[in-house]
């Protein structure tokens, strides 16, 4: 198996990102999914590397939807006065303000919120009391074919094909590796 992914700046032609796989290696996980949940990691790696997930369906075929979940192990804090719940994800890195974020409770109720910055802290903010929920980023790709390449920073990372029965290829790797 050999695969590569490259990103070029269109006007200058300069390549601004590149990963390539030429064979089996330990740091990558390459999995094929037919609807099952693929757990790519269950806890943060010990090193300080930047990790990424790619998943793709390279050929035309039936409709599919693949969802990538990047979940954080942080406790929520509910402010009754403001009726808001915040999750502090500062320890996981730096984030874009207003980016969408989600949380799910024990009854599988999903709530959408946004990332906000308070001083040097990055907070996930939700309406109401969802402090018992797990907070996560969600990305998905759907259609007849496609791919996505997403930086992952959370504790638990899963990928699942929610719609369709296509063969989904998923790769989890540390950035900078060229194998």
């Amino acid at each position, binding site marked *: *198996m*050999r*695969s*590569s*992914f*490259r*990103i*070029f*700046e*269109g*006007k200058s*032609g300069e390549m*601004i*990102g590149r990963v390539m796989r030429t064979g089996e290696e330990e740091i990558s996980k390459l999995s094929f999914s037919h609807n099952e949940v693929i757990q790519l990691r269950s806890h943060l790696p010990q090193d300080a590397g*930047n990790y990424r997930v790619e998943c*793709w369906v*390279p*050929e035309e075929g039936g409709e599919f939807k693949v*969802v990538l979940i*990047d979940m954080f192990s942080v406790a929520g804090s509910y402010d009754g006065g403001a009726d808001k719940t915040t999750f502090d994800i500062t320890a996981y*890195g*730096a*984030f*874009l*303000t*207003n*980016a*969408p*974020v989600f949380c799910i409770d024990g009854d599988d109720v999903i709530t959408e919120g*946004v*990332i906000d910055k308070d001083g040097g802290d990055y907070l996930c903010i939700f309406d109401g009391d969802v402090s018992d929920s797990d907070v996560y*980023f*969600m*990305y*998905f*790709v*759907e*259609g*007849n*074919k*496609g*791919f*996505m*390449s*997403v*930086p992952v*920073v959370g504790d638990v990372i899963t990928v699942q094909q929610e719609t369709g029965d296509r063969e989904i*290829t998923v790769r989890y790797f540390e950035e900078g590796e060229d194998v």
Partner: protein
Amino acid sequence: MFRVVFDRDGRNVFDMNVGETDINQGITDNEFEATETAVIYDGSNNSDSAICGLNGINACVLARVTAGVTK
């Protein structure tokens, strides 16, 4: 504005340019059908890009590239 090249088994599968004026308007490259769309976020702290996700691809992590192509 960006070109994305994606190979599998040594063979190009995707090779497309994103429209320079509006990345949400689809692919202007003749090599790909108009219904195929690509989005690349460079992770800059631009709230407009953060809240304007395309087909499930939103940038969340600052200063890290997030990319996706779908049809």
